[in-house]
């Protein structure tokens, strides 16, 4: 049986990187890891909500708030998921209350504060948390563009956010070369992969993004 990813550890690692300010990709990683499971968790609890966009809004507001003030989260008190889940849940309750005020008494919705204790591992949420799985979605699209298995492995390391040269050097079988030469070869291969993507990417596959 495959080992289950440790949600608490993933959250702690990402939070430490965000607070350290050393990574520019960490906000994207946090969003990709936590947004889907936070939404899923709220969908499950507030299944009778008519407008599912409210859940998306509650979750994204929680993330925007966290990105603006990561210091407000105290890792010693709860996991990052628990913290974000509580914030998103609270945002949603506020949205629902204001909605109720607008529509009451015509079609009021019963809103109760959630009494769930958000344990790590509840409802197998971690299953959805494997970063590999998230990146698999990206890799699925890239496989057709990068038929070479080695290129796929290198691209996979890149989109995993791996920055250390040694992992690429290992894949390329150049571990024994001097550091400078290794770095040059790794950079050349990374650039080649990006160029391949740029050359082969088809315009008609695009959708709306921002």
């Amino acid at each position, binding site marked *: 049986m495959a080992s289950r990813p440790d949600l608490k550890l993933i959250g702690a690692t990402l939070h430490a990187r965000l607070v350290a300010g050393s990574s*520019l990709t*960490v906000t994207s990683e946090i969003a990709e890891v936590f947004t889907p499971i936070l939404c899923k968790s709220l969908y499950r609890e507030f299944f009778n909500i008519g407008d599912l966009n409210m859940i998306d809004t509650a979750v994204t507001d929680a993330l925007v708030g966290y990105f603006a003030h990561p210091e407000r989260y105290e890792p010693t008190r709860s996991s990052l998921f628990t913290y974000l889940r509580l914030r998103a849940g609270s945002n949603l309750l506020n949205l629902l209350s204001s909605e109720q005020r607008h529509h009451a008494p015509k079609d009021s919705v019963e809103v109760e504060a959630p009494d769930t204790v958000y344990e790590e591992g509840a409802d197998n949420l971690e299953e959805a948390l494997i970063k590999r799985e998230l990146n698999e*979605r990206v890799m699925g699209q890239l496989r057709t563009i990068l038929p070479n298995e080695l290129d796929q492995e290198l691209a996979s390391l*890149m*989109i995993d956010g791996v920055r250390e040269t040694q992992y690429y050097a290992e894949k390329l079988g150049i571990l024994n070369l001097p550091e400078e030469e290794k770095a040059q070869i790794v950079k050349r291969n990374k650039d080649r992969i990006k160029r391949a*993507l740029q050359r082969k990417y088809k*315009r008609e596959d*695009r959708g709306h993004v921002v």
Partner: protein
Amino acid sequence: MLSDSDGALLRLAGKLRHDRRFMSYALASFQHQEELDIEQLADSLRIPPVLLLRLALCRRPNSESEQFAQQVREVADYTLTDEGQLANLLRQVEAIEKLRELERTTLNSAGESLTGLLAAARDHAEGEDEQSESESSDPDAGTD
């Protein structure tokens, strides 16, 4: 293609358009400056939507930092974007931001100067009025 589950991430990228610290802001500014639609933006970066979304959610490299090149490389690698193109996009956005800032500062200081000038003119005019009023209400004024 983007999947349904990307809806919330799209919404998040949309909210981060208003925060200068994020790539979403830089991408939106570039789109606005170049009058590009989202497809043209994707064209210029030549990456699939799922990676453009990922890029939008990253923090924005700081061109004034000594680590700018390294920061651009980190983001470019993570999103499989060409680092040269990304650096150019960021520099362009920043240059136009600075021009706008300068324009605003110039307009503000011109406005302040004009306000000051008008206030001085008003004070001067009021001073003259007061003087002529006191002269006309004092019959002995100027007769000694």
